[in-house]
């Protein structure tokens, strides 16, 4: 196998002229000869800001994974359980979880209703953590779908060119032509009502997989196009010619020669896609086309809280804050990963 860092770049990435200072620093530090991923790790370790924000993201993930523990042992309620007519002790005084005119209780700073309740008397903190789980699950699956499909399509289109490229490129153009949110809303609303049945592949309308699949498909062109461009460039390289001369099959060349050279670009795209998938999931859920009620997500929580902003601002502020922190964490960390893997490239998602 040959790893050829010089082949990286192509469409979707931008190059800066000259030798970047980071590379020069690496050379000065005597890192020449170290493998590219070890080198990237060394660079990432030096980027304290990226690591701090990466830690914030990991913290969010851990908190969300602990949602069932919090719900069971601290809040003593589930994410969809209504407590509209219940009462809770605040300052030694029994208080309605939802007042008779419909205003929910604010943060109690105790185990039950730590961050208050929503209009349906559901514990906001519990829904926040479960909502985060759902958002991260959707984003994770969506990213996986995007990366697999984009790699397959981008590599195949760039390597085979001709008819294959023409068909795949038009498919990508077709998806690209629609604004991501509009396409997501159209697909989301349609599938949410009737589900999707493609024989072996079935989706129920309220499944979390619905937004995951939609988001996964929507972002395919954003990754596939740069990968296609990079593959177009790679296929002209001498090591590919050499592989062909050895009589290797197309599949083998793609797997053993092309894919390893695409790997760093794929890695750089992962955090970017995760961040965008979380945002798109929140947007779709806010618009009613993502995670379906009564499942919580940060988007649906913000949407539900809008009508109570004047009297219960915590309903929008809390999930909004979590969303900002998570996106900031993964984005800054993603930038750090990109800088570490390829300081010369500015990979970004084009909208």
């Amino acid at each position, binding site marked *: 196998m040959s790893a050829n860092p010089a082949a990286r770049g192509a469409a979707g990435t931008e190059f800066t002229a000259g030798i970047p200072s980071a590379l020069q620093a690496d050379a000065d530090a005597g890192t020449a000869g170290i493998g590219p991923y070890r080198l990237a790790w060394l660079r990432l370790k030096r980027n304290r800001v990226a690591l701090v924000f990466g830690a914030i993201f990991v913290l969010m993930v851990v908190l969300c994974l602990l949602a069932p523990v919090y719900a069971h042992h601290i809040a003593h309620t589930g994410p969809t359980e209504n407590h509209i007519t219940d009462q809770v002790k605040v300052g030694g005084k029994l208080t309605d979880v939802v007042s008779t*005119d*419909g205003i929910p209780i604010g943060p109690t700073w105790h185990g039950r209703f730590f961050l208050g309740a929503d*209009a349906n008397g559901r514990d906001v903190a519990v829904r926040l953590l479960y909502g985060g789980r759902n958002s991260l699950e959707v984003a994770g699956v969506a990213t996986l779908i995007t990366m697999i499909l984009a790699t397959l399509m981008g590599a195949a289109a760039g390597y085979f060119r001709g008819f294959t490229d023409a068909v795949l490129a038009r498919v990508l153009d077709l998806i690209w032509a629609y604004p991501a949110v509009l396409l997501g809303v159209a697909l989301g609303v349609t599938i949410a009502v009737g589900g999707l049945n493609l024989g072996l592949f079935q989706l129920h309308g309220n499944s979390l997989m619905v937004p995951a699949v939609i988001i996964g498909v929507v972002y395919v062109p954003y990754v596939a196009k740069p990968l296609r461009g990079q593959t177009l460039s790679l296929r002209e390289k001498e090591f590919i010619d050499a592989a062909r001369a050895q009589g290797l099959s197309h599949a083998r060349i793609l797997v053993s020669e092309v894919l390893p050279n695409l790997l760093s670009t794929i890695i750089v795209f992962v955090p970017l896609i995760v961040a965008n998938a979380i945002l798109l999931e929140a947007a779709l859920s806010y618009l009613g086309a993502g995670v379906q009620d009564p499942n919580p997500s940060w988007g649906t929580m913000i949407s539900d809280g809008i009508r109570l902003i004047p009297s219960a601002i915590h309903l929008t502020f809390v999930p909004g804050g979590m969303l900002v922190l998570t996106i900031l964490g993964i984005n800054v960390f993603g930038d750090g990963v990109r800088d570490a893997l390829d300081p010369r490239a500015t990979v970004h998602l084009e909208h």
Partner: protein
Amino acid sequence: MSARPHVLTAAAVAAAGLTLGLTACGSGSSSSTSTAAGTTAGTTSSGTPAATGKPGGSVTALFGTAPDYLDPGEAYTTQGAEPHWITYTGLYTYAHADGTAGTQVIPGLADALPKISSDGKTYTMTLRKGLVFSDGTPVKAKDFTSTIERSIRLNWGGKSFFTGNIKGADAFDKKQSKTISGIKADDATGRITITLKQPYGAFLNVLAFPAAGLVPSGTAVKNLSNDPPPGVGPYMIKDVVPNRSFTAVPNPQWAKMNIPGIPAAKVTVNVKIVSNTQLEAEQVLNNSADVFDNFDTLPPSLLAQAKNQASDRFSQVPAVSTYYFFMNTQTKPFNNQMARQAVDMAIDRRAISRLSSGTLQPGCFFLPPGMQGHPDGPCPSAGDPNAKPDLAKARALLKKSGEFGAKVTVWGQNRSPRKEYIDYYTSVLNQLGFKATTKLIADAAYFPTIGNLKSDPQTGFADWNQDFPNPSDFYLLLDKNSIQQTNNQNFSQVKDPHIQSELAYLNKVPAADLAKAAPRWAALDKYVEQKAYFANYGYLVIPKFMSTKIDYKSAIVSPVYGNDWTSWSVGG
């Protein structure tokens, strides 16, 4: 029905209205609503609409959801009825007045109230002279026949009021005849004779439906919502942008016709669909829009503000309406009476009241307060609607039913607080032991979707606002003869022989004798509650909320159709 010959007089109808309380129209998204104690500023002592403000100007009215259709032959939601009753006047219509006075049926395009035969089966009336549609086409008697036929062909949600009562309408519906044999219309004299299969006490109200509002003969028998057909009324509808907006402009032909009791339009009404009730309420509160949708609920956070900061342009009026979760009796698990009763028992009506900003009065009966036949006393199935439900007992009942663990899909609308109702309802079903998930539908598409038998919804949100002050209007939803393939309103698909035999008697009771039949209606309503065909949870009051631009005191909230646009004036 009595065999005495009589002419149904306005006085008799008014008396019936008085005994009934209030009325309004009904349907899915909420047909019109009724006001038990609205203001009376809009009418003079003689009952004719008060002259208010000066003509001209425009107002922006906000709808929380788009009308199901903007075609009178198909529309059956409150948002549809509100513009239609002042655009498509029928032979009869309702007085333009608040409160009980607004439930009075008055002649519309007919020159007087009908002559009714001694057996109560033949109605005879004559068209006024000189009537023209908004496009200038003269109105003919046969337009009435074609209008009714068109509504039947279009599967209007209340078509069983026609097919179940007018002789030959059922055969026409089944395409066994080319016209309705029970309607005779003479263009030369303007005389219209309607023969019924059997007497129907509320038939005059049926003739006052907007779906019976005349459209020209030859109007295409298809949904014309994007370009509504001409009608005869104070307004005409133009510039329809589906699910976004439409405009109601004064009909220039109307003033020439000079029909007593129906005022001319004074302002152009620009209707905008704003599905976010928070935004809707804020816009009216800060005067950037002029009218809040009667059939929306103010969010709790703005209700207090509206009461405090806009007390001179905000009030609440009781509505003769009922809110319920339907349960499809033809499919599992709700074909099981015990399963339905368990649901009915488990619902905490106090909780839903809180979701409605406290504007819902908890209840369990289908017939609402203000309607003849509303039962008194405890709920046979649900228990005390103002107390905490016995969930353990309900769970035990569900286990006994054998439906424990059954999968249930709960259908609902996106807009608040209906979405919150569904969240709550789903939570209750899961607590009970069902495996419930929700399916939320865009507001404007909701009722056509659940009203299509192909959708086969198991359970979900529904409401009904009176179309007219007679319990038989509400029992359309429990009449097996009203089940239809599309635009169905009997969402629970109830087919109960006892209900049918009772309706066969009660529907014949003349409006004037309704009070005498009230105990029998009440007994039937208790029977329905005991069978738990629906899980009723209460009755709403509706907001009358306007900007400072509109003369609030003279603005009428019709007990049948909600905001009366002909009463609006600006800068008066």
